């Protein structure tokens, strides 16, 4: 047994309201750069729908993930090493920009600079690729809220599958259809096919926390990873010529903070925590013959962090005790393995994805309620789950390789919890027959309810910090110290892609962390990076407010050269770096 730790995420789809806040904050943090205009590390799809990039789940076309060869061994669906090398000069299966969408902006300048005339000036859409006028025809969520589903709904590869297998049709008429939102990030798989596809060996899985990252120095832009990833969550930065992907916000996770998408989630539907798993069993588990057994075999790889044997083995692998403890408190372990209500997305790709989903009960509930039934009654709900084959079949294609019984069981567990808790809320005696009908005892169901419904911040996000003894190597450390250089790229003789990469730290995050962990009042050690967004109301940071007029007018012209720290009239004029902040009026500081 080789125990490894893995950061995982669970998303409760019933809570997703499709607001795209996760996508937007992620984009602002990670892909608001030239070359990544079309890239969404986090995107939210309406299902049924084509997804982003369009029809990415059609693996007969895109060749992502693994399959079994004739001898029952795993092989990359896009072909083995030799085949990949032969296709190196022009990658044979590669999404084009049209499969994502052509990113655009608007020509806002016309609005303010157009000469006086009879007509109102219009901000025309401009392509971010060519700079020319463009027509907007698609985007990362063009079919949001089933927009256009009556015409294009059948293009969803999962709809196609369900249609092939059942006589019923998924209806897209307004009254008869169902829908839910599916937020997606990189799955940080246990058996990542992107890593296996990379000829340069630039993509790696971190030993400590299982986060899958791209070494920007080693990537040579062969783009086999983009073919390899069945979720199409590897992206090509067309300006730098390198692959990029969701980083699980590792600079935040390393210091114990949740990912941006989790932190900003309005519905609080994301859970973060550790899995302990047996790395030696992964390949075997991913190679089971029947696709519908993959969910079970994936669960089997995950180890019980309360098992003394597992704990001993984890210690042997030098997993720190606080990590083992975090694994014991892990909400994702509880949802996936204890309550068994979180399911992996497309286990049939055989990559062992580590972002799990609690399937939505809402399509069933909504339908019952609309028909005038009691949608909280478990009898009604159970009946409806058995009756409403279409949503269940569709969910099964997403989460259990088509095994409807497993999805139905999860939905029934959720229905039972709903009904059980209603009884308790109404002051009735807990009806333990309800949890028993889905194979649970009342206490477990109550705990599950607590985790699903009212878990607080530190119960939803159990993130052990990266260790101090390793801390000098963390990306976060020292990076805002290292550069104060101007923004933008230097002109280089080798084109825009050359030079060394920038550390991924976000300025505001750094200062936020400093403020949260420092004992000093605001202003000290802020290195000139205070703005309204990260100001906690503690003290008066330099440059945030207009100067108070005192005896000597001095502070406004402070600069490091003048030694502003020596004036000592303000508690926050702690040093040259603090006084050089907003007062210098550099807008780049306050982004």
């Amino acid at each position, binding site marked *: 047994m080789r125990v490894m730790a893995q950061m995982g995420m669970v998303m409760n789809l019933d809570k997703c309201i499709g607001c795209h806040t996760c996508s937007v904050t992620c984009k602002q943090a990670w892909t608001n*750069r*030239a*070359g*990544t205009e079309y890239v969404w590390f986090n995107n939210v799809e309406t299902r049924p729908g084509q997804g982003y990039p369009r029809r990415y789940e059609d693996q007969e076309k895109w060749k992502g993930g693994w399959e079994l060869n004739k001898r029952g061994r795993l092989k990359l669906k896009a072909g083995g*090493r*030799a085949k990949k090398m032969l296709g*190196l*000069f*022009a*990658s044979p299966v590669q999404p*084009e920009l049209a499969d994502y969408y052509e990113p655009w*902006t608007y020509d806002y300048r016309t609005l303010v600079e157009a000469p006086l005339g009879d007509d109102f000036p219009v901000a025309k859409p*401009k392509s*971010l*690729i*060519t*700079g020319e006028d463009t027509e907007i025809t698609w985007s990362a969520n063009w079919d949001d809220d089933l927009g256009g589903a009556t015409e294009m709904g059948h293009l969803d590869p999962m709809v196609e599958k369900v249609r092939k297998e059942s006589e019923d049709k998924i209806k897209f008429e307004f009254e008869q259809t169902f829908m839910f939102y599916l937020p997606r990030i990189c799955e940080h798989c246990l058996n990542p096919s992107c890593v296996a596809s*990379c*000829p*340069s*060996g630039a993509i*790696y899985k*971190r*030993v*400590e*926390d299982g986060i899958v*990252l791209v*070494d920007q*120095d*080693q990537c040579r*832009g*062969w*783009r086999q990873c983009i073919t390899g990833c069945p979720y199409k969550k590897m992206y*090509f930065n*067309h*300006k*730098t*010529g*390198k692959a990029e992907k969701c980083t699980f916000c590792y600079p935040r996770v390393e210091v114990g903070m949740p990912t941006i998408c989790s932190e900003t989630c309005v519905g609080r539907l994301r859970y973060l925590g550790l899995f302990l798993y047996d790395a030696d069993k992964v390949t075997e588990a991913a190679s089971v013959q029947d696709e519908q057994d993959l969910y079970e075999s994936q669960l089997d790889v995950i180890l019980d962090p309360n098992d003394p044997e597992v704990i001993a083995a984890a210690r042997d692998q030098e997993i720190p005790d606080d990590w083992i403890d975090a694994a014991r408190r892990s909400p994702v372990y509880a949802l996936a393995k204890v309550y068994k209500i979180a399911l992996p997305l497309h286990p049939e790709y055989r990559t062992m994805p580590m972002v799990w989903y609690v399937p939505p009960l809402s399509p069933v509930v909504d339908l019952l309620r609309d028909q005038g039934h009691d949608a909280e009654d478990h009898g009604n709900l159970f009946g409806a789950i058995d009756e409403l084959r279409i949503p269940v079949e569709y969910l099964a294609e997403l989460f259990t390789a088509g095994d409807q019984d497993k999805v139905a069981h999860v939905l029934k567990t959720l229905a039972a919890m709903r009904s059980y808790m209603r009884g308790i809320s109404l002051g009735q005696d807990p009806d333990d027959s309800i949890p028993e009908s889905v194979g649970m005892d009342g206490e477990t169901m109550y705990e599950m309810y607590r985790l699903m419904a009212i878990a607080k911040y530190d119960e939803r996000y159990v993130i052990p910090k*990266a260790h101090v003894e390793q801390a000098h*190597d*963390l*990306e976060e450390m020292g*990076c805002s110290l*290292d*550069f104060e250089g*101007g*923004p*933008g*790229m230097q002109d280089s*003789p*080798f084109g*825009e*892609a*050359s*030079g*060394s*990469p*920038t*550390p991924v730290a976000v300025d505001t995050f750094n200062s936020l962390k400093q403020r949260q962990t420092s004992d000093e009042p605001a202003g000290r050690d802020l290195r000139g990076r205070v703005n309204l967004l990260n100001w906690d109301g503690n003290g008066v940071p330099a440059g945030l407010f207009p100067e108070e007029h005192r005896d000597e007018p001095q502070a406004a012209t402070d600069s490091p050269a003048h030694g502003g720290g020596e004036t000592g009239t303000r508690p926050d004029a702690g040093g040259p770096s603090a006084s050089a902040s907003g007062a210098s009026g550099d807008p780049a500081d306050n982004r």
Partner: protein
Amino acid sequence: MDILLWGVAPYAMLVVLVGGLIWRYRYDQFGWTTRSSQLYESKLLRIGSPVFHFGILAVIAGHFFGLVIPQSWTEAVGMSQDFYHFNALFVGSIAGIGTLAGIIILIYRRRKTGPVFMATTRNDKLMYVVLTAAIIFGLWTTLASVFFGGHGHNYRETVSPWFRSLFIFQPDIASMAAAPFSFHLHTLIGMVLFVIWPFTRLVHAFTAPLHYFFRPYIVYRSRDKTATSSSPTRRGWAPVGTEDRDTQHR
């Protein structure tokens, strides 16, 4: 003059090539990429690029046979000069024409596809000129032998001995000087190409991922080793917008 061209220049070229590669490997790993434009355009690329690349690999193999393996060796295994020459010209012409056709398709695509042309730097343009010239003049030496020369010039008595003599630091300048003008021209352009090589996108050829055949599929790395590459620049973090695109390239 001959001493300068065939005695000094090759070593200067080697110094720049090796030194440039080492320097770029250490300074500019982030810029060391194929800078693929397949995201913008795929149809023409999928014809042109394999034709060019497989062609150029064949051409490289041909150069190896012609330059490195002495005539005496092939004769020792019973291969007559005529037989060798016929083969070299036949295979060489096919490979050369293929390479040329490939690069013509690629250049056409680069010029005609808006986004691809926009992503073309001045550096790229210079590289394309030199590379295409090297291919054309190389092909010329081959085709000239086929059509005009009868048996053609036996470069294995002039160019090849000179090439090998370079590596023992006793350049055989006289042999090279005796070669026809077309060979001189091709060799010189070739040297220019190798001089600019480390400083263009051509560097990707030196990191052909052959180790892919030998490594395990899943790569694990410890966090300890990952953070060393960070350095204080902002490359790759230019803001989104058409503006920077225009200012970058014009």
